[in-house]
């Protein structure tokens, strides 16, 4: 026998359940963020940001991990962006929609979903050992580049395809060539979308640990060239926290990471808003 609830009652119950779920999520979310920030921000002093770690990280600051994060991310973005955006342009403008493009798209989707540890394993065997690049910013950056490439291809392709066909037609009717159209019309229109993809890629690079720990290494020194090993902040946090080397510095590193991610997110959000406002 099925109990028939008065629709009014079921409405009330539903409301309670849904509000509880939302409050639970917010509670968990804020407890994690506030816990880390409250324990970490007090440790973010000027010395913390400008000194190199010493004594295995027990003292000193996190300058070299900061530099490590920036350099590895920069290498990844410099390599992945032209390749990714170029591929996106090629796929949308120069080829016809066919089974090949469908296969390519499916592959890009699948590769975007590969666990980062698999990229790390590949990067370790291929860049560090086989190409003899050793544990270095270059190995780490290239591994991350391959990791964010599918994401950049996907978001760029999406951005270019949603440029209204009218834009292209107007450009052509005015006598523009394909190249001029791409440069002056499509590019700027798709730019917010493309930038969003790049920013998402940056976010992923900054937060990544599994793929970086065995490609860029875990050396504490300030790197002197892109062939030097380097620690990123995420790796530094992992090592400090896991081995109990210095909890204050671990929290400080985590807090700095969260702040960085927050800023990256804000940037991405505002670009998306611009994208949405323009494209439709």
């Amino acid at each position, binding site marked *: 026998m099925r109990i028939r609830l008065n629709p009014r009652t079921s409405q009330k119950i539903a*409301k309670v359940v849904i509000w509880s*779920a939302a409050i639970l999520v917010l509670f968990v*979310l804020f407890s994690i963020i506030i816990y880390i920030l409250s324990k970490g921000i007090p440790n973010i002093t000027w010395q913390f940001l400008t000194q190199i770690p010493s004594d295995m990280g027990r003292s000193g600051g996190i300058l070299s991990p900061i530099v490590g994060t920036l350099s590895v991310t920069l290498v990844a973005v410099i390599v992945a962006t032209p390749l990714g955006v*170029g591929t996106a342009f*090629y796929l949308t403008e120069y080829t016809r929609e066919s089974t090949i493009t469908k296969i390519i798209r499916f592959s890009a989707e*699948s590769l975007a979903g590969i666990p980062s540890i698999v990229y790390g*394993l590949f990067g370790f065997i291929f860049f560090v050992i086989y190409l003899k690049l050793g544990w270095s910013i270059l190995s780490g950056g290239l591994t991350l580049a391959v990791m964010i490439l599918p994401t950049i291809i996907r978001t760029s392709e999406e951005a270019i395809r949603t440029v209204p066909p009218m834009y292209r037609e107007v450009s052509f009717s005015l006598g523009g060539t394909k190249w001029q159209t791409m440069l002056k019309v499509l590019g700027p229109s798709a730019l917010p979308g493309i930038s969003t993809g790049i920013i998402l890629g940056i976010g992923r690079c900054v937060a990544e640990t*599994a793929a970086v720990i065995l490609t860029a290494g875990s050396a504490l020194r300030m790197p002197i060239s892109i062939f030097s090993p380097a620690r990123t902040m995420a790796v530094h*946090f992992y090592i400090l926290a896991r081995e109990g080397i210095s909890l204050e510095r671990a929290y400080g590193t985590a807090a700095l990471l969260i702040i960085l*991610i927050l800023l990256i997110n804000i940037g991405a959000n505002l670009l998306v808003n611009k994208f949405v406002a323009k494209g439709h």
Partner: protein
Amino acid sequence: MKKFGEKIPQSLFFIMALSALSALALITVFIFVEGIPLIAKVGLFNFIFGMKWAPSLGQYGIFPMIVGTVVVTLGAIILGVPIALCCSIFLAEFAPKKLSNLVRPAIQLLAGIPSVVFGFWGLIFIVPAIRNYLGGPGLSILAGSIILAIMILPTIISISEVSLISVSPLLKEGAFALGATHWQTIRSVLVPAAKSGILASIILGIGRAVGETMAVIMVLGNAVALPSSILDPARTLTTNIGIEMGYASGEHQQALFATGIVLLVIIMILNSIAQYAIRRK
């Protein structure tokens, strides 16, 4: 003259596309080339269903790890999906605009937090709680599921919310016109209409859970034995690679690539299901 000027950018883009796609193909080929010989040597059945993972003895059975991945992910789904769905309904239908504008970026922030931070938080709060109140070492499948559930919340919430919002307002108004309550409308009209997007978000969440490594290494205990309860420690396919890849060589290394192949296949299957679900819209 103009035609020539056209050829240059075209070739340029072609080269870029070729390099990018070759790089991606390289990875796939590399993983397969390294991994297949081991699967051939050990036998596909023995590899996937073998109970013992002991590389020093030449034994490469990944079944305990497959069980670990499946159970931990399942747990994350059971814990995470209902809450995430409720939360997305909340954002789409119940939350006042000011609140949702605050909550949405907060959830996005959650999505970007490095997994090692989640793992550490779990090590400090979840693991001791499980050990003290439920028993076992605390490092357990349950701890992994809880952490993963939290980590996939943002994915499911944001995509489901978008799907709910993009349901045609006419459907809603029609339901109201027929006298349905708010909840009845949500349950019988909105959610079914947004079904494919919601399903896609869940599958994306599953993909993220399956692929997670660092947070799981920290809270799962990493024992090689087949787990017998959710309070037992376990290993997943990803953590197996993560722990051993630093020192694996020869056959052992090939076995890790073979594990990578299994992961690739799982992701591809998940992706195909997602594509199918979206296309059915």
